[in-house]
């Protein structure tokens, strides 16, 4: 009896832990509303269009991680994400934005002249 309760408790806890993380990952959606190249930085305006809150923890510009202030967005919220980067005019940049759960939005953006 004790062994059965212990075994099933472990099974239930494991199922809950695994599916809870999966639940949040499945519910994550965000979009890039705008990208603005300003002196020494790239500002990216994000909107959370998913069903859970999210946290942006990494941005890769041309596959290289860049420094940023992590941004947390609740459901339906939006805001600027500032990435420190000395960009060059008239260049195309591959920008990859990654959340703490691993969801990413990737696209190419051209800097102004």
């Amino acid at each position, binding site marked *: *009896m004790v062994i*059965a*309760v212990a075994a*099933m*408790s472990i*099974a*239930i806890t494991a*199922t*809950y832990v695994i*599916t809870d993380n*999966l*639940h949040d990952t*499945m*519910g994550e*959606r*965000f*979009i890039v*509303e*705008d990208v*603005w190249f300003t002196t020494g930085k790239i*500002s990216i*305006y994000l*909107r959370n*269009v998913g*069903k859970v809150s999210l946290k942006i923890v990494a941005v890769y510009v041309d596959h290289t991680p860049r420094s940023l202030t992590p941004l947390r967005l609740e459901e*339906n919220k*939006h805001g600027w994400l500032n990435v420190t980067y000395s960009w060059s005019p008239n260049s195309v940049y591959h920008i990859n934005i990654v959340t703490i759960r691993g969801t990413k939005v990737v696209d190419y953006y051209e800097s*102004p002249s």
Partner: protein
Amino acid sequence: MNLRLKQDRRGVSNIIVVVLSLVIVVAIIANIVLWGYEMNQLDWEKMKEDIIITNVERGTEINGTSFTFKNEGALTSHLVSLWIINSTNHQRYDINVFVNSAETITYLRADISLPDDQYTVKVVTERGNIAVCSG
């Protein structure tokens, strides 16, 4: 006789524990499956949405700007963001406009003035679609 009864009860208890636990595990997994269905529905709705900006012009009777949006999709669109972008500024405005399917509406904003140089107007829907227009 007493020993046998005790063993029988223990066997029944084990079965109850296992069955209850399996019910809980199935409930947790079912929750995930339903959540997946809900998220698929969300993605499907996003794909079905089709909003376009058909006209942007400076107001003639009032100061400001009028925007004409057309919903060519099958679902009602909720417009939540409006951007006016030019070479020097990216200005965002909060909006709250609903456009029914197959409907065209004109949205007037007295506090928005279009730049004199080349500009881009962007409108963002709640589902995450973006319509763009240049002027």
